[in-house]
């Protein structure tokens, strides 16, 4: 998979930065790419794109319903609009517009939701999108993508720009561990086995993939963990999930999102129907987040390496 060699001394960069770099390159490559934003261009890292493509940068102000609708209209006129804002607003506030103007219409809009998860940190629960995977993955025609780090966010941005149809891309605010490299393969809809193991499978997405890898390394010798990065939640890679669950017989899901309806829900649906497997879902347990530093929050809600190790022991001893 060509991951970084040293998992401990990793470089840290935000997924939104990877997205921003990709958008700047896309702006030069594809003249149909348009960015539409609702007052959050700079923190979503599309300020380079704005400077370089003023004619193709639409600023709608703090008006997310219009953000989605304008993007649909651009897509229906042959453009490839990226509708860019925070996930709590986009798709949080404009879900009806996403459902009808974009998904039912099958308009080629790329919805980019930033600042997802508790790792938003100090801004607190109002700004921590913990439900966005759940509300997007139930929409027909919509693809849902959650890159695990900077490089993957970059690759995912290029990939969804080439893909014809609506896509939701989930990004995060803080600088997180870079675990993939420029040469790590990436294919939409294809989950990645980042580490092979035979005792337990951890299906993770987003920045928490790193915590899963750290935990797997720490319990090495004691228990053999398989770590799979499920960067595409929809369409879900059933084959890879079932194959791994059959091998290990024990499954943990890990996400910076509610345990209901997100990655955990998706994997539970797949396995419940096709290969019932002992399983624990890790994520926010039907509660809101709060202010704090990302690391403190992950520790408090047991979503960091230590939380994962605790869950590994639990599923082993159950």
């Amino acid at each position, binding site marked *: 998979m060509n991951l970084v060699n040293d998992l401990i001394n990793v470089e840290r960069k935000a997924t939104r930065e990877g997205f921003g770099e990709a958008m700047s390159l896309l702006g030069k490559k594809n003249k149909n790419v348009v960015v539409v934003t609702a007052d959050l261009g700079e923190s979503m890292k599309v300020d380079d794109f704005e400077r370089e493509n003023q004619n193709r940068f639409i600023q709608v102000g703090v008006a997310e319903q219009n953000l989605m609708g304008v993007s649909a*209209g*651009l897509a229906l006129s042959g453009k490839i609009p990226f509708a860019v804002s925070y996930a709590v607003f986009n798709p949080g506030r404009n879900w009806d517009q996403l459902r009808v*103007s974009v998904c039912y219409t099958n308009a080629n809009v790329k919805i980019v939701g930033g600042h997802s998860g508790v790792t938003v940190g100090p801004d607190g629960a109002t700004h921590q999108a913990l439900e966005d995977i759940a509300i997007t993955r139930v929409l027909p025609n919509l693809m849902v993508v959650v890159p695990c780090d900077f490089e993957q966010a970059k690759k995912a941005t290029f990939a969804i720009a080439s893909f014809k149809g609506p896509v939701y891309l989930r990004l995060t605010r803080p600088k997180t561990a870079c675990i993939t490299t420029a040469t790590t393969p990436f294919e939409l809809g294809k989950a990645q086995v980042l580490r092979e193991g035979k005792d337990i499978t951890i299906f993770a997405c987003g920045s928490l993939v790193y915590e899963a890898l750290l935990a797997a390394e720490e319990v090495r010798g004691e228990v053999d963990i398989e770590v799979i990065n499920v960067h595409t939640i929809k369409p879900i890679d059933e084959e890879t999930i079932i194959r791994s669950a059959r091998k290990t017989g024990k499954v943990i899901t890990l996400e910076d999102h509610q345990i209901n309806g997100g990655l955990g829900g998706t994997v539970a649906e797949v396995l419940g129907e096709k290969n019932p497997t002992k399983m624990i879902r890790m994520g926010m347990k039907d509660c809101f987040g709060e202010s704090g530093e990302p690391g403190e929050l992950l520790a408090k809600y047991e979503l960091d390496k230590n939380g994962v190790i605790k869950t590994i022991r639990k599923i082993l001893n159950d």
Partner: protein
Amino acid sequence: MVDLVDKAREIRVEIIKMLAKAESGHTAGALGIADFFACLYFGGLINFKKEEPYWEERDRVVLSCGHYAPVQYAALALAGFFPIEELGSLRKLGSRLQGHPVRQIKYFGNNDKQLPGIENTGGPLGQGVSVAVGMALASKMDKKKWSVVCVSSDAEQQEGQTWEAYQCAAKYGLGNLTFVIDRNEIQISGNLGEVMPIEPLKDKLTAFGLRVFEINGNNMVEIMEAFGKGKLFPGQPKAIILKTMAGKGVSFIEGNYRWHGRAPTSEEAEKALWELK
């Protein structure tokens, strides 16, 4: 020269026939705005090619108040976009004439489920207004000549999204965009002024940066004139408030909000068709 008055009458006849057959749907709004739709598709207000409905240089008609679908379906059929017999399939299983109009993009292969001439998916009020802004932005971005006409209802102005869209249209100086607002004074649960007043609508739209024309929406001369005057303001989006009579043309439907969301029975349809002769 097409007789626009007669076209409007034909549109109304088809509206009544298709709604009676469907046994559900929205009658009053569609009848009230039929004169405008006659002007739109038969009076030369827009460029289109019926045999090539998604011709790139066409003007776009965005129906934001999707519940007005019967009027657009009737106008499109009469204009030759699809066979008039198909109007009888309104709201039936498998029909291209969905209860609310649908635009669906298919990226591979033919899209034979798409009703020709429909530009947007409409239903939840306010959405098409933004979609129209997006289209007008695309046209302007590429320095194209095609323009956009967006039709919304008066009660639709109660949706916050419409105002988000207007401020954006004004900011970008979308002179290629005309918002047509049907002021029929009714909505599903009562008279608009009682449910939620929208006055002073003209002042509000003006304050939002639109060039506003308020006219009798059942008068074709005024409709044609308003579009003509709109052309004098190429750098500004236009709003044309059509003051219409809900249910226009059928005496027992006119002005009655209870006809917002119901279809005529076969006896009522017979009476209505007799009046429209």
